[in-house]
């Protein structure tokens, strides 16, 4: 028995041990190229979208200045339309397409690496299972969420540089083809509190990216190679999109309830499919279930035997 074992420490010390463990795990995930590279890739895509948005806005602004009587719908060309989730630029589409893969890189493969390097054996001789896995899962959730949060927040700032803030006119938005459907969750906020709309969708991306990475951390108990985990995880998202859209079409003749991250993270949807609040809730249950059940059932068997 080790003297410093958390399992045998007084109760009041356990919380501080757990907090230190969590901060140590988070630091290892964030201060690493596996966090820096996906964030930089996302920021590059955000910057590309911002440049394209600036060119587009300048062009319309020029037309509006030359012909003030026509207006060119400038009353609806506002900041909220030049955010990556609403601008529909190719780089924005690429960002949301890659996000389910990029958010896995900081932490989802850490269990596989620590098992193969032998670090896990040393850690488990000093910590309880729950403490070790809990700290890792929470750090993984935060790190993956930040991969989504940082570029989306940066994009909101870039959008504020491109166009003025304001609420889009519900009458003119139809003619400008604003990509908000009747089915888009939180669509009311788009017309009343645009900044809150951006904040809600940014936090949704943070939440779903984090929970998806944590679910994959649970699945990694059965995997020996982190690269395979990432690639199969990404393929699984495409498959979930395919299967849930197929079932929605068959059972409800409705294609709005996909559970994949490509659709969940972005208000404009993916491949013509838009998510719904029911789809979001079901996704939370499915991915949250994987996050909690897999380690609860299989951690001892996969990490000790």
């Amino acid at each position: 028995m080790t003297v410093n074992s958390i399992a045998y420490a007084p109760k009041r010390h356990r919380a501080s041990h757990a907090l230190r463990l969590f901060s140590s795990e988070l630091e290892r995930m964030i201060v690493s190229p596996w966090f820096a590279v996906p964030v930089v890739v996302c920021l590059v895509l955000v910057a590309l979208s911002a440049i394209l948005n600036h060119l587009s806005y300048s062009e319309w602004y020029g037309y509006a200045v030359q012909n003030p009587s026509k207006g060119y719908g400038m009353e609806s060309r506002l900041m909220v339309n030049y955010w990556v989730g609403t601008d529909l630029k190719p780089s924005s589409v690429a960002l949301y397409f890659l996000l389910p893969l990029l958010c896995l890189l900081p932490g989802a493969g850490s269990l596989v690496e620590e098992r193969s390097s032998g670090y896990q054996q040393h850690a488990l001789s000093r910590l309880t299972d729950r403490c070790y896995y809990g700290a890792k899962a929470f750090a993984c959730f935060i790190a993956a969420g930040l991969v989504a949060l940082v570029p989306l927040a940066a994009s909101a700032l870039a959008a504020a540089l491109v166009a003025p803030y304001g609420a889009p006119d519900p009458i003119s938005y139809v003619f400008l083809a604003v990509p908000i459907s009747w089915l888009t969750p939180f669509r009311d906020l788009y017309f009343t509190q645009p900044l809150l709309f951006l904040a809600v969708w940014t936090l949704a991306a943070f939440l779903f990216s984090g929970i998806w990475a944590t679910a994959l951390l649970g699945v990694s108990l059965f995997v020996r190679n982190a690269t395979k985990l990432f690639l199969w995880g990404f393929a699984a998202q495409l498959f979930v999109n395919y299967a849930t859209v197929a079932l929605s079409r068959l059972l409800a003749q409705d294609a709005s309830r996909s559970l994949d991250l490509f659709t969940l993270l972005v208000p404009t949807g993916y491949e013509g499919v838009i998510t719904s609040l029911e789809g979001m809730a079901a996704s939370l249950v499915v991915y949250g279930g994987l996050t909690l059940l897999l380690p609860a059932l299989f951690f001892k068997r996969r990490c000790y035997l």
Partner: protein
Amino acid sequence: MRTLRLYARDLRVGLPSVRPYLVAALVLGVVHGIAAAGNCAYSGNDLSSFTFADYVALTFQFANPVDLWLLIQGRPLTITFPWFFSFAVLFAATLEYPRADLLGAGYRGVVASGSRWAWWIAKCAWVCTVAAAFWVLLFAGLILTAWAFGAQASEFMSEFAMIMVPASSSTRYPGMSMVPLMLLTVPICASMMLVQLAVSVRVERMPGYLLCMGVFFASGMVEHPLLLGNYLISGRSAGAYVEGLPMNDGLALSLAVAWIAVAVGGLLVSRMTIYGGSRDE
């Protein structure tokens, strides 16, 4: 005789490594069937008016080839990922075993048989067998699902599915068969898997896998008779559309690719230096 014994050993020893993929083939067939039924229901027509061939055509559909002009104009690039699923799973099925066998227990088989060519030919035959078993199971799952949804037992496409499948060909005649496309799946995939086998044994597994998936990705994006994947897209199939790519060309091309892969791969394997479980170039 040596080759046959090695082949029998491969069937016996290699089966556990491909068993999950064969189960996945059956599951994929069922999922493809459900997706096709979903598309049929979404089109607003009665499910009983569709045929087995329609289900096959909808499973092997792909978006139209990429148009650079439209891309420049800002139209998004459309990639039909479900079309890739079956090939991605099939190519992964034979990725591990041959190389692990050559660098592991199979090394003793090579020594005992006294011929590297026998070992290589047996592996090629095993790969072709896996390809055939995979497609038989996938089509079994697909057709059983179609039958469960009340599809008509016919090899000919209906006019409803003709409209739903994206095709660059303008001439569409209902009543053309999907059997040629189904029959071509085995030789085309087997030929590409033989290329993957040669690369994975001589170089590494992932480059071989990426090469084959790259060829199929290029096939989806560009319509060209030399890109083998084109023959497995229902919207570009001469079995379904008059102006589609001829099936005989696909068969001849796949046989040529297979022959080159077996010959070149065999030469490479026969010249490799193998030291009891590890390899030294």
